[in-house]
């Protein structure tokens, strides 16, 4: 089929460049400069989708971002699928492949259409609301059905070949929208020296002037556009961003701009060799001032069957004719409430097509465009409107009648006019979405029948965005707004003044208010009158909502789904509010408006994610020994951002060890000989100052007053609510100098915690904190042979009387300055060797050279966990969860009740809640069946025969198989557990099994601690 609706001349398309594309598998041809929508219309495609709920055929309605129907799935390959693309915003390119989103199985013969017809009540208004009220299980069924049939599009199932950029920008004035107002504002600000960013969502800048009939300085308006853009492009202080949508307006003038760099070229960015251009770019703009020049969207009228393909916005008709050289039909009826809409009829006639009639709701329309239509002999039917469209898959006629808008009745005979296109215009709604993103409520203005932006600090609205519509006013408003914004940005705005362009004045008559057109039948029984085409919301649906008692417009929105999803109420919102207002006998501002949310139009995840994916998703932290671990084939575990060796599987007889096998071997090596752990990730904070010791005494639960240089102490840190937040050892390096260690994950939080207390409560204390986590590498040598091994490499006296448990010494290890701490997280004899991180590999390899004869075994975090759990040593965040006190843990030995200062957490320990005897307390669990390893997180009950819901009295926090003990064992919290030693508890599992376990001490191995003291 050729381009049946393409005019022989006119438009801003390049007829010398044919572009081939496919829609729903069929090939078509368009021209460079087309959008997918204009090319589809040129090719006479009436039906582009089936509707969301009723599965009715739908055609193209608009020419811009407000298009509700022509939402397509784009992409020629699986990896390049993009859902939610508006055909009106997608430039045509060679090879473009698009599909309808709603069609299932295809738009012409649609199965859901049958469902819709057979059971009209399948999805009545209020469906979502009512379904959410129903049992949740039903929703699952509905959702599957809805998702399959509704046009939500789909994401690609293969990796995206493209890359996306983020860029941070700053400017004095950000101008959003490059129509007449935006161009005037931008050039005014730029001439005054402001750093300006001008963005516009369309393929070309110029906005409404691209299809305007008007003259500026006695020439077609586009020539003025070209001049202004040329001037802006030549200025160093201006950044022009076409194809760039301002999608979100956030706090303090932070605006996200989505620049589509290559989406007009192909469905994947052009590549040269292995380099591929970024497909889109997200500009994160912090603007001193924002100028909102987003113009206005035309409102369609709401009449019966207004969704049949062939019903368009009046302005869209003009845009398709004048900008794309496409007349989307032969015989037009225009239903209007204002003069500006008459352009559609004039353009249609000038394109050589028949205008059957202009149906005007006003009694006596007067104005230059009206006079022009009269001169051309176009019939004008006044005080009337199209009350119903005829036709099924394409408009075949318009039923026209006199109406009484105030009484909401049809006031005369109905006449049927044969036509194939109905254009409607109910006036214009300023595009206030962005200003609403900030949380500001818009203001209704009766004189323009629309909402204008509310007051936002740092924002100036100009032109159509604030209801200024005549072109000469718009340009002046843009100039004024540009000057205001420049001054508000702190610049002198009078330095340069440009000439105000001369616009041929046009007289427009006053518009009248009409939203829903009355029908002979009441809305509930008339053919469907659509308000929100994308979400299939009808006037009857809104009436029903108000009858069911929904008075707030926000509730009506949720009841009907009006303005949901990607639509964000661009076409339907005001009409919907007007209908609700009529039903509730209120005014539109009394009913209020709903809140628009980012994003203004859909943004792909790729653009949002930018480069923060794959390897760059999150920073990874490596210890100084990482390369060695990799070479040894370690499996890694993520601990915060750190990559820690999880276990070191060996290959035995050609078979790689499992986790279980490797951990059993590593555990036994530590218990029987000697193992080594890379503990460099532990947080380390260097604390100095005359009051360092006093400070420690206030933030730790235990005593620090008498810790001598050379000694180490384990400390518990609570929040002031008495709950444990971190633990670790702190060593006294000198009278005023300490080294604190924290958990790997807690390091940054503890650092901030110390600063918080020092800076806000105790600034008089002389103390300083420095994070030294990365400066030192930590190697834990532990096991019965640890002393023998270390002795071969150090000048430190390791004699057990000279260098006791919980001592630290300075010296050299493998010839390198080192601090060695005799602390143990395994229950075995242990030395933690700290050396400067850049010496770590040297020391580590030296240890292995000497350790070979002791079978020195590297172990990972999993073995570390088993070994510490056998000793009942907690891991904060695993065995505790922010609701556990040191007393719950049975660690009264680490609480300095009689310290002079009321340290953080102390007072809370005597609150009635922390004194309860039935608090969950920390215990060991020994499963009755030695082969059982309980599930971590499993719930504990006292009575296994209690009916569901059972009284849950605790849960398992850590659970492992112990190769040393030869059975499974667990740590847990149990209500009143400390007084329940020896009792049996039960753990009912999902599969119906019930495990039995005995409450025991959490210390399973060496309860007297003799092994670490050897």
């Amino acid at each position, binding site marked *: 089929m050729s381009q049946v609706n393409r005019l022989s001349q006119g438009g801003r398309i390049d007829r010398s460049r044919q572009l081939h594309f496919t829609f729903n598998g069929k090939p078509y041809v368009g021209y460079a400069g087309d959008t997918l929508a204009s090319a589809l219309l040129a090719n006479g495609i009436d039906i582009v989708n089936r509707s969301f709920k009723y599965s009715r055929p739908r055609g193209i309605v608009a020419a811009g971002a407000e298009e509700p129907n022509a939402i397509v799935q784009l992409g020629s390959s699986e990896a390049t699928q993009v859902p939610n693309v508006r055909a009106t915003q997608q430039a045509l390119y060679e090879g473009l492949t698009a599909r309808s989103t709603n069609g299932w199985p295809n738009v012409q013969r649609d199965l859901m259409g049958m469902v819709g017809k057979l059971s009209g009540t399948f999805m009545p208004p209020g469906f979502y609301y009512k379904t959410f009220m129903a049992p949740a299980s039903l929703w699952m069924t509905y959702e599957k059905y809805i998702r399959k049939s509704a046009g939500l599009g789909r994401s690609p199932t293969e990796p995206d070949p493209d890359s996306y950029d983020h860029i941070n920008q700053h400017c004095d004035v950000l101008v959003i929208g490059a129509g007449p107002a935006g161009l005037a504002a931008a050039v005014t600000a730029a001439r005054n020296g402001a750093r300006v960013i001008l963005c516009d969502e369309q393929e070309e800048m110029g906005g409404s002037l691209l299809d305007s009939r008007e003259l500026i300085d006695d020439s077609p308006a586009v020539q003025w556009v070209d001049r202004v853009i040329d001037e802006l492009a030549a200025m160093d202080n201006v950044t022009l961003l076409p194809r760039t949508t301002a999608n979100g307006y956030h706090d*303090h003038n*932070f605006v996200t701009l989505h620049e589509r760099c290559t989406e007009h070229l192909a469905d994947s960015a052009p590549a040269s060799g292995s380099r591929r251009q970024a497909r889109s770019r997200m500009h994160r703009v*912090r603007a001193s001032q924002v100028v909102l020049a987003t113009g206005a969207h035309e409102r369609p009228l709401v009449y019966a069957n207004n969704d049949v393909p062939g019903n368009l916005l009046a302005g869209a008709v003009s845009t398709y004719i004048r900008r794309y050289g496409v007349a989307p039909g032969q015989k037009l009826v225009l239903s209007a409430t204002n003069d500006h809409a008459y352009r559609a009829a004039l353009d249609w006639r000038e394109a050589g097509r028949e205008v059957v009639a202009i149906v005007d709701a006003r009694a006596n329309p007067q104005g230059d465009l009206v006079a022009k239509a009269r001169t051309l002999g176009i019939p004008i039917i006044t005080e009337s409107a199209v009350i119903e469209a005829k036709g099924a898959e394409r408009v075949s006629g318009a039923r026209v009648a006199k109406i009484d808008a105030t009484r909401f009745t049809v006031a005369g005979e109905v006449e049927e006019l044969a036509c194939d296109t109905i254009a409607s215009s109910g006036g214009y709604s300023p595009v206030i979405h962005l200003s609403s993103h900030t*949380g500001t409520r818009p203001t209704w203005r009766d004189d323009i029948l629309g909402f204008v932006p509310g007051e936002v600090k740092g924002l100036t609205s100009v032109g159509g965005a604030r209801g200024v519509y005549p072109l000469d006013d718009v340009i002046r408003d843009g100039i004024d707004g540009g000057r205001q914004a420049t001054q508000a940005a702190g610049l002198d705005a009078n330095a340069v003044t440009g000439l105000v362009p001369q616009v041929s004045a046009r007289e427009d008559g006053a518009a009248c208010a009409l939203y829903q057109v009355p029908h002979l039948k009441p809305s509930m029984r008339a053919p469907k009158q659509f308000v929100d085409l994308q979400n299939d919301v009808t006037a009857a649906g809104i009436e029903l909502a108000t009858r069911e008692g929904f008075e707030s417009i926000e509730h009506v929105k949720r009841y009907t789904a009006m303005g949901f999803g990607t639509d964000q109420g661009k076409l339907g919102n005001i009409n919907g509010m007007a209908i609700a207002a009529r039903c509730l006998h209120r005014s539109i501002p009394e009913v209020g408006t709903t809140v628009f949310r980012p994003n203004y139009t859909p943004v792909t995840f790729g653009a949002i994610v930018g480069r923060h994916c794959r390897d760059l998703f999150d920073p990874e932290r490596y210890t100084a020994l990482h390369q060695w671990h990799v070479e040894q084939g370690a499996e890694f575990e993520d601990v915060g951002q750190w990559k820690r060796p999880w276990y070191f599987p060996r290959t035995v007889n050609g078979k790689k060890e499992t986790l279980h096998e490797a951990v059993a071997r590593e555990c036994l090596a530590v218990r029987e000989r000697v193992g080594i752990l890379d503990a460099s990730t532990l947080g380390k904070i260097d604390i100095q100052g005359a009051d360092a010791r006093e400070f420690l005494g206030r933030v730790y639960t235990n005593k620090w007053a008498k810790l001598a240089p050379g000694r180490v102490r384990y400390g518990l840190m609570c929040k002031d609510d008495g709950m444990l937040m971190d633990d670790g050892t702190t060593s006294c390096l000198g009278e005023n100098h300490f080294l604190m260690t924290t958990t790997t994950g807690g390091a940054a939080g503890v650092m901030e915690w110390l600063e*918080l207390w020092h*800076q806000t409560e105790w600034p008089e204390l002389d103390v300083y904190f420095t994070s030294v986590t990365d400066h030192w590498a930590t190697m834990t040598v532990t096991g019965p042979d640890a002393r023998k091994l270390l002795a071969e490499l150090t000048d430190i006296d390791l004699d057990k009387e000279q260098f006791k448990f919980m001592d630290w010494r300075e010296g050299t290890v493998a010839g390198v300055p080192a601090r060695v701490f005799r602390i143990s997280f395994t229950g075995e004899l242990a030395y933690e060797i700290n050396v400067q991180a850049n010496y770590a590999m040297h020391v580590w390899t030296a240890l292995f050279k000497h350790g070979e004869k002791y079978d020195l075994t590297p172990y990972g975090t999993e073995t570390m966990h088993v070994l510490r759990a056998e000793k009942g040593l907690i891991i904060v965040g695993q065995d505790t969860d922010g609701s556990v006190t040191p007393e719950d843990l049975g660690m009264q030995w680490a609480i300095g009740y009689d310290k002079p200062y009321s340290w953080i957490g102390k007072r*809370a320990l005597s*609150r009635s809640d922390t004194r309860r005897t039935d608090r969950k307390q920390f215990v060991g669990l020994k499963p009755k069946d030695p082969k059982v390893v309980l599930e971590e997180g499993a719930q504990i009950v006292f009575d296994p025969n209690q009916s569901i819901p059972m009284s849950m009295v605790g849960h398992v926090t850590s659970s492992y198989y112990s190769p040393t003990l030869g059975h499974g064992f667990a740590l847990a919290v149990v209500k009143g557990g400390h007084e329940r030693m020896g009792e049996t508890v039960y753990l009912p599992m999902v599969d119906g099994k019930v495990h039995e376990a005995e409450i025991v001490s959490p210390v399973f191995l060496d309860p007297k601690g003799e092994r670490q003291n050897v």
Partner: protein
Amino acid sequence: MFHIYCPYCEEHREEEEFHPKGQAHIQRPADPEACSDEAWGDYLFFRDNPRGVHHELWVHAVGCRKFFNITRHTVSYEILETYKMGEAPTVTAKSVSEKDKQAGVQAATGGWQTVGARPESEALNDASNQGARV
């Protein structure tokens, strides 16, 4: 995303560099042991939730690591002032409502507060408190 003026760095930085730490000017009772359970619970758990002017503690976490205060409007999110630890705010709910009154603006008073929350401390409005740690 907020644009925050750090009073120590003396420049505007992006919100990503900061952490919010809750309501400002919550002073730990000098003698916790002398507090009733109720008074201690109030210090620990109860915070204001005003509709309007709110004083907040923030930290320039990945900048200078200094804690400081922000006076922010909880409806417009406008930052009215930032000031160092130990300084008293010059903008308070009281001063804003007085200014509005003079300008003829009818401001909503009270707003929504949590049960047990204290009214804005009088100390915040006392100019002689300048320099005192409140």
